[in-house]
């Protein structure tokens, strides 16, 4: 670990707006400001953890009350998708951290590349979640490229497709919805709708956080292209990174709870 000397990296190229950065007038120094921003953001992260705390609490309570329903619901999820998505998020967390490293060492192009990869990973995560999990479970329509589709060959209703043939309807698969919206014909335990309520609330709020994180990453990407960040000023990237890691952190718990622990 090295502590950075802010004067050892003269700006390379034109994008050196970061060198002109002047900290807020009410801060005693830029280092103080950076520290303060981080402290503030960590405080914000604690609120995020406790926000999900509600979901975790509901999960824990109802799992203990209705273990059969939880087992049944968990079995309806495909652990492969969950594991793949976990890997995607972990990799994106790495690239996010790597982009901070690159900024700290003033490797602007590398930083931007890492940000792009992080953004794409987020997109992949949400895309998979939406196209391979939400849509089929909710409606019974499978993406035609979904590898899970071949398990359901006999239940496919030919010709019943949606969105220009991109989605194929499988009879009796959909309807796994929360609460009163529940319409899955093969459920056994009466409390399965409750499981789907917790599943959808947990993962949807998480997915919303992924989207917010992606927006933040897009923002720092464009600011970075503008030369706003460099070795002495990168608070924006740093807190975006913290947010992104928290999203990852939540998923690290959601994944085994929803997909594995049955």
């Amino acid at each position, binding site marked *: 670990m090295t502590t950075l000397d802010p004067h050892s990296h003269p700006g390379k190229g034109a994008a050196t707006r970061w060198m002109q950065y*002047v900290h*807020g*007038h*009410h*801060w*005693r120094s830029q280092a*103080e400001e950076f*520290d*303060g*921003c981080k*402290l*503030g953001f960590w*405080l*914000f992260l*604690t*609120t*995020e*953890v*406790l*926000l*999900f*705390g*509600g*979901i975790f*609490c*509901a999960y824990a*309570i*109802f799992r203990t*009350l*209705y273990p059969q*329903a939880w087992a049944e619901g968990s079995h309806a999820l495909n652990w492969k998708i969950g594991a793949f998505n976990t890997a995607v998020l972990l990799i994106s967390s790495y690239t996010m951290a790597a982009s901070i490293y690159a900024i700290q060492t003033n490797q602007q192009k590398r930083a931007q590349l890492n940000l792009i990869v992080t953004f794409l990973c987020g997109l992949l995560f949400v895309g998979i979640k939406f196209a391979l999990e939400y849509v089929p479970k909710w409606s019974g329509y499978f993406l035609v490229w979904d590898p899970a589709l071949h398990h359901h060959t006999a239940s496919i209703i030919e010709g019943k497709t949606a969105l220009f043939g991109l989605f194929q309807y499988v009879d009796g698969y959909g309807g796994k919805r*929360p*609460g*009163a*919206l529940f319409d899955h014909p093969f459920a056994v335990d*009466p*409390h399965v*709708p*409750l499981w789907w*309520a*917790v599943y*959808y*609330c947990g993962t949807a*709020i998480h997915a919303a956080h992924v989207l917010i994180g992606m927006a933040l990453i897009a923002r720092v990407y464009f600011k970075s292209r503008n030369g706003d960040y460099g070795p002495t000023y990168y608070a924006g990237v740093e807190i975006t990174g913290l947010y992104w890691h928290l999203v990852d952190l939540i998923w690290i718990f959601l994944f085994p709870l929803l997909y594995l622990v049955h």
Partner: protein
Amino acid sequence: MSGHEHHHGSYLTSKGSLFTNIVDWATTVDHKKIGVMYLFAILFMFFLGGIAAIAVRLELVHPVREKVVLTVSGPLVAPVMNPSTLTTGDGRTFELEPGKHMVRWTEKDGTEVRQGDTLTIPAGKKVEVLDMKGKPLAVDGKEVSGTFAAETRTAPPTAGVKVTSVVSGQLLPKVFGKTDASIAEGNNIYNRFFTMHGAIMVFMVIVPSIPASLGNIFLPIMLGAKDVAFPRLNLLSWYIYVLGSIFAVVSLLATGVDTGWTFYTPYSSTTDPHHWRVVFMVLAAFILGFSSILTGLNFIVTVHKLRAPGMGWFDMPLFVWAVYSSGVIQVLATPVIGITLLLLVFERVFDIGIFDPAKGGDPVLYQHFFWFYSHPVVYVMILPGMGIISDVLAVHSQKKIFGYRAIAFSSLGIAGVSFIVWGHHMFSSMSEVASTVFSALTFLVAIPTAIKVFNWISTLYKGSIALTTPMVYVLIFLFLFSIGGLTGLPLGTLSTDLHLHDSYFVVAHFHYVMMGGTIMALMAGLHHWWPKMFGKMYNERWATIAALIVFVGFNVTFFTQFFLGTRGMPRRYASYPDEFAILHQVSTVGSLLLLVGFVIHALVFAQSLMAGRKAPKNPWGGLTLEWLADSPPSEHNFDHEPIVTHGPYDFDTTVPPHWDPKDYPIPAENLARAKADAH
């Protein structure tokens, strides 16, 4: 960072045309201006909530909502209820059957008949028999009349009675032009009003009141900082507050919600099924939570990072300590209400069932979610008030606060314990095990609170006490808060709580704590810092008179409610048995006194703003840093960053800033003693 040109003038100084002024205020990142905007927004919501409170109190003047009195005004006509035998005048008998026959007979005019009641015709009374259409029944061309052999019952009369009086108690429906409202409709209006009162007062007034207004203005100044840590975030949190309030007002304009401010499921998830009002109100609380989180977060970072040189943690004014502690609670507890309200919205919109027993969910789980936030937030409400009391008390008795560290740590202690006592709101709905655990933990909170009160009162000892309006409010606070705190004991005690839970005793208790505590502290702080905030003095005499009226009005309003509670009056009742009427009426009179008191206060403040005497820089002789600044402070608070050389309460050894040492002759023995203490 634009917009930070150094102005030497006051932060209130006008900058140009009305329009530029409005834009300047709307886009300001100056913590003082944001604090002032918060102050007026909160006072406006306090006004709205107060209107609702008065409406609720006026409605309760009459015990019952509607008591229609019918009196006999002619021959009574009513269907018979049981088969009976009539003996006609000529000795024949006639069988009457329910559903076929009505009878007509006379009673004395003016006899009272209860609406909807069946009637009894004594044997021997002369009656005429009618068919169900009301035509006299004729047998063999002769109308049937005679007397019953035994007493006979009839359904409520269809004719022969008139409404002689409609006892009022339908105040609110009448105000809204619904003179023919049914009991249920009338009750419903009442329910919407008390919900409006509770929701506004909790979410929009008491939670943000002190931290967001006085805290915003004075926390940075007391720390010697130029601003809060994140000024733009501060402005954002004000706008979020306004947005949340707009959501709430929209729901109120659509005639409001009838859930109570606690939104207990399954009532809140099933009431008002075809409307969005509940969702709007819930979203309002959800949005206001964000505002609260951002404010708390901002203050915590400010305290950690922006203290003036020389100001260690234990050199901070106790107000700062208290706001800091409440910030911790805001940050840790508010997200849980966020997810709770979000789930409640999902419950209403998508029927997800987590809190709905009909779908396998659990309504008491909602209560746990709700109180995990809402109990700690009680301390968000009261801690800053306690901070104000500590500061104002010390300044106006020019006495070092007794047990500084004990007060500071008890703030943190209260913040910590507040997270493990929420179950005492649910003794009658929880498992017995949980009730016992929560009751034991609840008593823990009493200890740091008691310590604070002891410290405050000890501070008076050998002080130099000036009975200014802020100090009068401090004494009022100590009086009312002691009652509020002590009446918490029977509520935390399991056996007595089973009687008092959800009764008016609880209503009185939390009003003593919330209003007698927080609002009285707010009034103390408002008067204490008014000269600093606006550079004008207020009329001391009228302010003190108003304070005394508020004090009397408050006790008349709420002490009676303790008696109501122990005698068995449940809360949230639109009507009640007559025996509670007198106490309710006394309470209503008290609430009107309170109204008078607050109106005088408003006039005093208005007079001060328009024609008040210019305030000196340090009218009370305070030692904390805000008294170093101008009145009102300049845009950046201080000309130079202040360096802290004395403690916030070293009155016995320090001449207050801007005071002439001649007016403050420090006894030599004080200095000697301080020297001795230092060694």
